[in-house]
């Protein structure tokens, strides 16, 4: 049983490393130019020349999927960085200083959390011109409140422990206690939140792309490939299948890794922790 649990973590990490290599060295793995159209070979089924077939303009789907990994992973990581940074900073401030700052920050998270994330992302993406940095910002903007709440809870718990009082007693400033003593101790839950934030961002980016509000063609992304594919699903099964499978495998890899981390840091054998969820 123990060994099985470890396997999830390592399988997840291995898959993510593989995908990262694929994204960084896309030109080495792709055997065609992802933008190269070929009027004679449109909608060809998968074969020796085109592993995943060709799309409506005769572009090689395999190469486009490989290049699509760049956008997905970049958006996933950057949006995660944004929501983790903003969420950790605001959550730590709210938890440590309490009072008015806490009230203000927590009401702000309440307000953002009542918007259905996809609706907010769709609205923002519809109003502003979709560019990569904007998609990152939009996804990050919907992701930070959950992190802020989590970090606030952790800081509240850690603040009441004796080592925090002891370091205050020794003359450490509030900022020193918060940054040097409390935040590093909250690293575990933040790490788990980060591994959950990446696949969530990748799914939202793909969803935006599918609705036509994500990163725009001609840049190949898995989302906008699926959007193009939906008019051809009756005749070309490969068109929608492979980009979608790429999203699935990527998100699954991150979920495996997150599950592995969670089992190490917060095993189900500690059921008492579960009750925090419903008494707030």
């Amino acid at each position, binding site marked *: 049983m123990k060994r099985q649990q470890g396997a999830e973590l390592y399988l997840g990490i291995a898959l993510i490393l593989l995908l990262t290599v694929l994204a960084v060295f896309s030109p080495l793995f792709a055997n065609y130019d992802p933008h190269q159209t070929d009027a004679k070979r449109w909608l060809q089924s998968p074969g020796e020349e085109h592993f995943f077939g060709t799309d409506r303009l005769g572009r090689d789907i395999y190469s486009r999927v490989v290049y699509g990994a760049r956008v997905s992973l970049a958006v996933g990581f950057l949006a995660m960085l944004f929501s983790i940074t903003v969420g950790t900073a605001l959550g730590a401030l709210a938890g440590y200083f309490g009072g008015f700052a806490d009230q203000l920050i927590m*009401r702000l998270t309440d307000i953002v959390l*009542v918007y*259905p994330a996809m*609706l907010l992302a769709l609205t923002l993406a519809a*109003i502003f011109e979709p560019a990569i940095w904007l998609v990152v910002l939009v996804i990050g903007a919907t992701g930070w409140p959950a992190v802020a709440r989590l970090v606030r809870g952790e800081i509240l718990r850690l603040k009441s422990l004796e080592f925090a009082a002891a370091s205050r007693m020794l003359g450490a400033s509030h900022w020193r206690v918060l940054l040097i003593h409390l935040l590093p101790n909250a690293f575990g839950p933040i790490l788990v939140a980060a591994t959950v934030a990446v696949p969530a961002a990748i799914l939202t980016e793909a969803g935006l792309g599918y609705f*036509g509000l994500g990163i725009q063609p001609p840049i190949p992304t898995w989302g906008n490939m*699926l959007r193009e594919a939906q008019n051809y699903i009756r005749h070309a099964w490969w068109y929608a299948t492979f980009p979608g499978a790429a999203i699935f495998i990527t998100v699954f890899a991150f979920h495996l890794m997150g599950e592995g981390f969670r089992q190490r840091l917060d095993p189900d054998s500690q059921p008492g922790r*579960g009750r925090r*969820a419903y008494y707030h």
Partner: protein
Amino acid sequence: MIRLLLNRLWQTAIVLFGVSVITFIIMHSAPGHPLQANPELRLDPTAVERWLELRELDEPLPAQYIGWLSRMFRGDFGKSLIYNRPVPELALERLPATLLLTVPAFLLALGLAISCGTWAALRQGGFVDRLLGLATLAGLSLPSFWLGIILMMLFSYGYPWLPASGMRTAENSSVSDILAHLVLPVTMLVAGSFSYYVRYVRYTVLAVLSQDFIRIARARGFTELYIVFRHVLPNASLPIVTVAALSLPQLFTGALVAEYVFSWPGIGRWIVTSTLARDYPVIMAVNLSAAALVAFSNFLADLLFLLIDPRLRFKA
């Protein structure tokens, strides 16, 4: 208890106010004004000015906000730029179709999740538990729109058993026809939300199972079935209700995607198409009412806890 309720009511009011301000700011940070949403429209500048004046769009922002808010309170949500009809009218027309899709999906997913999750928790670490763990992880990783497309390819085109889109076939209003149209979108919705609920159910049931009163009930020789229904599930119901109530935003997103993929004539598809067309009054009204609905349901969930769990009434 009264104080607790008033406190929650106050917080909900603040959230609603914040939501209205943020929605207003988002809409007004849109470059240009609604008439510029369609660049192909060539309009006479004086006519544009007159149009803006008529709709009070030339006033300072705070004045516009107050005017807009007071119109909202009077039930005037504006007219859709595309249909030129009041937004609530358009929404109400589409509401039944959306409910027909989401309510069965929600109940099915929750029911399945409670039974499977409890079963997995009772046999923690067993084969079923581990299989379910992996399956739900996969379920959470599936992009829902892709699942919809795959279902459509398999069961509408590969094997032409089920209709691929819409809610009914033309000139066929039988119940079985609508049911056939429901199968694929409901499957897509259930796959996503089941995976989400089942993990919570398993986790909470495990938490209840490890408590002393369960050990005592076992020691007293009650059957496992009696313990599950009499002790475990009532105690696990509170967190499960919480999660179900808090999943309203996800249900909303699910409806958006499912209706778009399967061309279901409901609110979700209308929202997506209105957003793509930059139909500002619709986007604004929808954002505001969706957020208000979620805030309100969170408040209702809190009320529900007080009814379900008498312990909470005395705690606060």
